């Protein structure tokens, strides 16, 4: 290749390729690669792009169902929502960039996931996110929270897509490696879905969007390496987002999609021009030839290497039907965006790149796509946490006192400081904003609603990755169910440490196994996802964190339920078994300062029948408030319902076999608290018994206090103050 330096083994290592992988490169090419080719192999074979360590396990997940239109492998997954409409959604990580530069890292994470959705023809209707930060007292945490939240808001608010839900956790295991997982959900017509595959020979390959600069070069490789103390030097690999251009790109793409002009379209995300061109050509079984002189450039003197690896944001690659270039160009011109024909499809099955008239790369596409290395990495069975010896846990002086402490602790304190910085109401369809179980967004112009939730409990996953994987899927399903919606499918974002360590690979394998079991049992298949490995700093891995993002369908939003207590005198009923399990609970963590014990087991059969029963109760209008029981247990759930409705409650724990604090704070799975309008309780109790779901009468809603039999009541106002002050005070620097 013209002008390429001699490749040394040091350069190979800098590009993250092993000796074996480099041998595979030279065998494939039959010669030494050029520097540009080395760069292309490096990003395409990075963990981020190739899923080389995870693929063998991901294949075990269920991906089919009558509702599934498109499963994993495309830009996003697609499920049918009836009436010729579909929901298109995916979640993706932007962990490493967000730790290095929180605002831009988080912002471009949101931008990237929205492009994955609108590149398929959907208008995004909701953004969600799952965030994990280090311990509050860690010196970097406050800065990272502020930057990530501002970045998510700054991008989503500007594009005009409501951010409607998510979850935020703090744990010292994320001190050096935060997690920013962004999810986007869009809606499209089922007859107007666009896929990535190119086809035909001689069809124009078109570049649209922002110009290419030197930003983000090697982002995919960075995202596939561990961090160390020199990580700050990687700041130049973080991309810079421009949500304004994204908004223009969104409108221009959707406008062009109204015409019959696009054969295939793919956003330029990680590994930019390289991965978008390779994926389109590989999926379509064609070749592709690019002339980099035609690429719109922001800087002068860029090399082929830099252009192929740039991760400049807000760009798309399309293959158009021949002859449609002029019409398409007019649309992008109207929106003030670059439009350039930069190549054509070929019948060679190769990626051929020219720059300044010189050949810079000539690679068989198969080696970059399906033929990329795949590893069945060695793994060991995770060491499971021992069951908690309950005799070592003393009861609290007062249940309500413990509750107040827990509600004000970082794990459970109100997230309003965060979501008040997100535009949640734009679009006029947000019917259930953050603060409940799942967010509900109406499908524009219809009575239907999409219920969405993001869930995972990393401390459970650490103690028992398989149960933790099951629990993440089950909780997401439960949260969607609690609105009355039927869960349709999920997307995942699997955040783990270094897969080359057998312990980490064991966590990954077990978590995916558990996820698969739950997804199968609950008919909640996986339609898209993302894997983020190497989340380690100086050899310390994060907690295994398989974030699950689910989407469900409400056929009529008028039938939806939320968590708020509605009226004095409503009966509170526990659906599901009594609390009995304190291992890994927030009670232990917050009140006793302990993290030991096994996590609660997920009884998938019990989960399914309880959830199906809840959906029937909501559908019949038999309940007016529903909240799933998760972090913190039953008493926390009741407190959240009371605060949401601004109505007190008076409850008692009547199981004589189990200490009341364990009933109050046990985190047993598959459970809900429901509010039943006056006079309806007997019917609900009888119906539950008829379908074999355990139930227990808890008490009544009413008043302005929370009461537990035998204790001094606490005022809702006091509880609200405890719940709402921690995060704003923390962010204002008032405490660690």
């Amino acid at each position, binding site marked *: 290749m013209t002008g390429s330096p001699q490749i040394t083994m040091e350069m190979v290592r800098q590009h993250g390729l092993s000796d074996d992988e480099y041998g595979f490169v030279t065998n494939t090419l039959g010669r030494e690669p050029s520097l540009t080719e080395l760069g292309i192999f490096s990003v395409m074979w990075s963990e981020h792009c190739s899923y080389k360590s995870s693929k063998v396990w991901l294949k075990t997940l269920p991906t089919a169902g009558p509702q599934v239109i498109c499963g994993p492998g495309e830009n996003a997954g697609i499920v049918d929502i009836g009436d010729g409409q579909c929901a298109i959604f995916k979640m993706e990580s932007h962990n490493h960039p967000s730790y290095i530069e929180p605002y831009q890292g988080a912002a471009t994470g949101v931008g990237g996931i929205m492009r994955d959705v609108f590149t398929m023809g959907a208008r995004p209707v909701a953004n969600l996110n799952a965030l994990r930060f280090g311990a509050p007292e860690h010196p970097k945490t406050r800065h990272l929270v502020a930057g990530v939240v501002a970045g998510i808001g700054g991008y989503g608010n500007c594009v005009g897509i409501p951010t409607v839900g998510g979850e935020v956790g703090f744990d010292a295991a994320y001190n050096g490696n935060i997690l920013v997982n962004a999810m986007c959900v869009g809606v499209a017509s089922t007859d107007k879905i666009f896929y990535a595959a190119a086809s035909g020979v001689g069809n124009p390959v078109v570049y649209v969007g922002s110009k290419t600069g030197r930003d983000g070069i090697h982002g995919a490789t960075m995202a596939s390496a561990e961090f160390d103390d020199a990580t700050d030097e990687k700041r130049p690999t973080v991309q810079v987002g421009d949500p304004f251009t994204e908004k223009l790109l969104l409108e221009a793409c959707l406008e062009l999609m109204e015409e019959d002009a696009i054969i295939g379209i793919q956003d330029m995300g990680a590994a930019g021009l390289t991965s978008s061109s390779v994926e389109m050509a590989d999926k379509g079984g064609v070749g592709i030839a690019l002339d980099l002189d035609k690429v719109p450039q922001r800087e002068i003197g860029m090399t082929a290497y830099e252009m192929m690896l740039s991760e400049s944001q807000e760009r798309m690659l399309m293959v158009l039907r021949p002859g449609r270039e002029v019409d398409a160009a007019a649309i992008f011109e109207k929106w003030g965006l670059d439009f350039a024909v930069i190549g054509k499809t070929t019948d060679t099955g190769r990626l051929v790149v020219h720059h300044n008239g010189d050949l810079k790369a000539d690679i068989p596409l198969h080696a970059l796509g399906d033929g990329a290395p795949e590893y069945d990495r060695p793994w060991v069975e995770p060491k499971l946490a021992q069951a908690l010896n309950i005799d070592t846990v003393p009861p609290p002086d007062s249940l309500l006192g413990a509750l107040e402490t827990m509600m004000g602790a970082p794990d459970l304190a109100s997230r309003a400081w965060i979501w008040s910085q997100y*535009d949640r109401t*734009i679009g006029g369809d947000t019917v259930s904003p953050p603060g409940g179980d799942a967010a509900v967004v109406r499908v524009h112009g219809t009575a239907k609603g999409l219920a969405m939730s993001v869930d995972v409990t990393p401390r459970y996953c650490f103690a028992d990755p398989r149960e933790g994987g099951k629990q993440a899927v089950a909780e997401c399903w439960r949260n969607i169910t609690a609105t009355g919606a039927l869960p349709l499918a999920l997307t995942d974002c699997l955040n783990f440490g270094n897969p080359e360590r057998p312990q980490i690979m064991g966590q990954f394998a077990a978590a995916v196994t558990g996820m698969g079991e739950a997804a199968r049992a609950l008919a909640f298949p996986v339609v898209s996802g993302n894997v983020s490995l190497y989340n380690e700093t100086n050899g310390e891995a994060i907690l295994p964190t398989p974030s699950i993002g689910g989407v469900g369908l409400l056929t009529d939003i008028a039938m939806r339920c939320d968590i708020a207590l509605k009226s004095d005198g409503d009966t509170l009923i526990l659906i599901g078994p009594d609390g009995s399990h304190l291992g890994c609970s927030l009670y232990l963590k917050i009140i006793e300062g302990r993290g030991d014990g096994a996590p609660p087991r997920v009884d998938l059969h019990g989960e399914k029948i309880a959830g199906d029963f809840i959906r029937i109760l909501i559908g019949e209008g038999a309940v007016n408030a529903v909240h799933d029981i998760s972090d913190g247990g039953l008493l926390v759930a009741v407190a959240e319902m009371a605060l949401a409705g601004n109505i007190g409650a008076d409850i008692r724990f009547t199981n004589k076999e189990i200490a009341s604090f364990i009933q109050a704070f046990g985190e047993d799975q598959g459970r809900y608290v429901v509010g039943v309008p006056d006079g309806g309780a007997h019917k609900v109790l009888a119906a539950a018994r008829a379908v074999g779901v355990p139930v227990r009468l808890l008490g009544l809603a009413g008043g302005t206090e929370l009461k537990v039999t035998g204790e001094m009541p606490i005022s809702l106002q006091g509880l609200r103050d405890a719940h709402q002050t921690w995060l704003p005070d923390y962010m204002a620097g008032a405490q660690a």
Partner: protein
Amino acid sequence: MKAAVIVFPGSNCDRDAADALTWVTGRPPAMVWHTSNELPNVDLIVIPGGFTHGDYLRVGAMAATAPIMGEVFRAGIRGVPVLGICNGFQILCETRLLPGALMRNASLNFICREVNLKIETTATPFTRSYPDGALVRLPIAHHDGNFFADEETLNRLEGEGRVVFRYVDKAGKRVPAANPNGSRNNIAGIANAAGNVLGLMPHPERAIDPATGGTDGTALFAGLHEALR
């Protein structure tokens, strides 16, 4: 009532505004692209919310120089009702159809929440359907809603009854705690001297449906429809 919604690159509440107008008038408004030099013959011009030109340079500054804004300015001077919501308010200030400026929120954060507002005058086509002194709840969603004007301008706005919407507490009192963004005199929305040009930071178009954000914005659109029928 025939209405036009002006659409700029980066407008993102244009559909919401159009939906509200369609719902109240029964017919969709004309969507007018910013590069146009012509306004259709309409009874109402709406400049919707968004991040026109990415808020780059200064909020509303670039949109104010769009070709269509000359027509909007002349229509506003002629007495055609002009409604600027959120970024639309910022644009109207930049065109000088309205006095003052919208600065970054005092907290420096983007704020999205419901606010309590008092309708200080019903002597505009926008507020004529509200009872005198009505208290309403509308959502806000902005980063730059901190209304600023010099003392003389503030005195003139107050003296001439041109403060139309004000942030208040639940009891209707103008208190600092009710001010979400640091606006002078808790001002949320103002009118021009003739009362036909209104800019406000809250979003009435997001409050026309009990399922999504209450209905306190309904009377604004219904009142316009009646007045301009």
